[in-house]
């Protein structure tokens, strides 16, 4: 294992994933301290632009977490997320950024353990990818 410490942003929807992250905390599930959560009401409010902004500023990876399909608090909100975020990843790929730096996943309010797993795996993956090359870019 290398000692690179990635800096990661996670968007969590208020109703499922943020609650799942809270549950992981309540159950004291330990995980690497690299992921910083931003609460949004629904994963569908995450603009692809936020992902690009984060990556272009050198943040090493972006997680977008929402309710499982069918469980979105806003009926079909996350159907949009499911289309938008993979598209954002594809666009990054086109400009030479590893698309694995963006990950979309579903974590329910009851899935503290899944939150822990997603975070741990994503941090490991970012560690293996190394620093975001955009970090070196100074305009």
């Amino acid at each position, binding site marked *: 294992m290398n000692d690179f410490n990635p*800096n990661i942003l996670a968007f969590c929807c208020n109703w499922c994933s943020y609650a799942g992250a*809270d549950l992981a905390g*309540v159950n*004291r599930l330990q995980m690497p*301290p690299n992921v910083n*959560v931003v609460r949004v009401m629904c994963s569908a409010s995450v603009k692809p632009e*936020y992902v690009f902004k984060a990556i272009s500023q050198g943040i090493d990876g972006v997680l977008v977490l929402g309710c499982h399909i069918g469980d979105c608090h806003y009926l079909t909100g996350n159907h949009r997320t499911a289309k938008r975020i993979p598209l954002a990843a594809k666009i990054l790929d086109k400009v030479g950024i590893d698309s694995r730096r963006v990950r979309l996943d579903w974590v329910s309010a009851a899935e503290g353990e899944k939150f822990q797993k997603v975070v741990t795996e994503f941090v490991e993956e970012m560690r293996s990818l190394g620093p975001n090359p955009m970090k070196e870019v100074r305009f």
Partner: protein
Amino acid sequence: MTRIGVFICHCGHNIASAIDIEKVVEYAKGLPGVAYAGHNLYSCSQEGLGSIKKSIEDNDLDRVVVAACTPRTHEPLFRRACEQAGINKYLFEFVNIREHCSWIHAKEPEAATEKAKKLVAMGVAKAALLEPQEEGESEVVPRTVVIGAGISGLAATASLLEQGIETHLVERGDRVGGLLKDISMVGPEGICSRDLIEALVDDIENSPKAHLHLNSRVKELKGFIGNFDVIITKGDEDLTVKAGAIIVATGAQELQPKGEYGFGEHPAVITQLELERRLGRSGLAAKKIVIVNCTGSRQPGREYCSRICCNASLKNAIRILEANPEAKITILHRDIMSCGTTAEALYREASEKGVRFVRYGLEQKPGISTHGKSIKLKVFDEALDESIDLDADLIVLATPLVSPDDSEETSKLLKVPRDKYGFFLEAHVKLRPVEFATDGVFVCGSARWPVSARESIWQGQAAAAKASIPISEGKVRIEAITAEVDSEKCAACGNCVLACPYEAIEIVDDEGRRAAKVSEAQCKGCGTCVAACHNDAIQQKGFSSRQLGAMIDALARASTEGTQ
């Protein structure tokens, strides 16, 4: 320039044991727009809230950031404190450094402190751009749905009806009463369970506002506090009920301890609930009875104490002896939990009546051997420090209450969380014990945790009281997180109209200019439209692209420039 106040909470040891509070305070002082940074032992206590309010006045603050636990439970409390100190409550930002930091990085204090700084920097960056908001209101449907007709659900229903609130009670079984159907006498007081159930059922049956649905389930739940759509299904018939609040009273079930002490193999090895059934029917023929407490609980994998079993064992031992003073009863236990005066008196009574108590340990669990009808037990008695042999013609296993088989399904359906044993999790253990974090959904009884019948009734009544608040007010405030359109930027492309799950947006003529318009009463504040807009013309209050962008900037900056 803003005058932001930042308050870092110790939460006793919960946060301070992993995060160096002083360092985070010092760091916060240097963040742009911060006029004051301090810390509180418990920010949510009266004292903590008081000191926040005082700092607002003393330092002429115009925005507040609290770094503590989760906004899902505590945001309303701090927002109220801001309001009381004269700051619009939407100028408050919550940073979660407990659930999302100290608790999950408990063994890495340095990294946890660094992360807390980043999270605070992000919160401060957002706070600087917050704007004051006004809240709208929406009507509350004056009707409730209670799921589960055990004693807690019955108590909740009766109490709602007493307040004149129309209530649908949904029970999957063919009778009401839950576990108490099989328990004829309710301890420690010795009350007849049928009387208890019938008293509540009478209240329910005599009310024109009650609707009892037996053999039914809730198939779907949509909507929000004040306006839920609940689909109740019975056989292949569906009924949609509109309700303002929901109470979950789905209870628990007794663990069936397959394979333990010959359960399922030998007919004379039964559970306590089966003992209850037999005592209720015809009494017992058995003379030598051994009750094994803590079967399947307080052990790796199921660490909790089920709370009700010790008292049930004591109650049943006395009942058996009253009917047949010749019976020999031994209770094998690991500790007797008979808290409170009535239950403790029961323990004393059982001892005086000759019940033998033998304490066993988990390392040396009692061994069982069977020869035809006779059963022998070998128990290592911790008090005597030696093994003893017991003969028995009936073994009763006192097993814990566990969450119902389908509680995962229920949790998904209602979108409410469960703990690691499958019991439902309330919004806050102390402050909001009968509410879920989702507004308008409440919980009571053994669905939350094994409780006695008396506690189930308390909780049922408490949940009913809580559920009746929005209903009697008739209105709920709409959180000011709805979307709004900047018609100058809007190109009237209609993307947002298509994206909105609620048909809350339409394209209208605004003084000769076509632009999207959001109906505030219909908007639920998901922000789906925001991400659909190519022109950044539609924004969600409290989650604008500038505010979220500032958080991203703050995180990027913290990593390139460090957090020293």
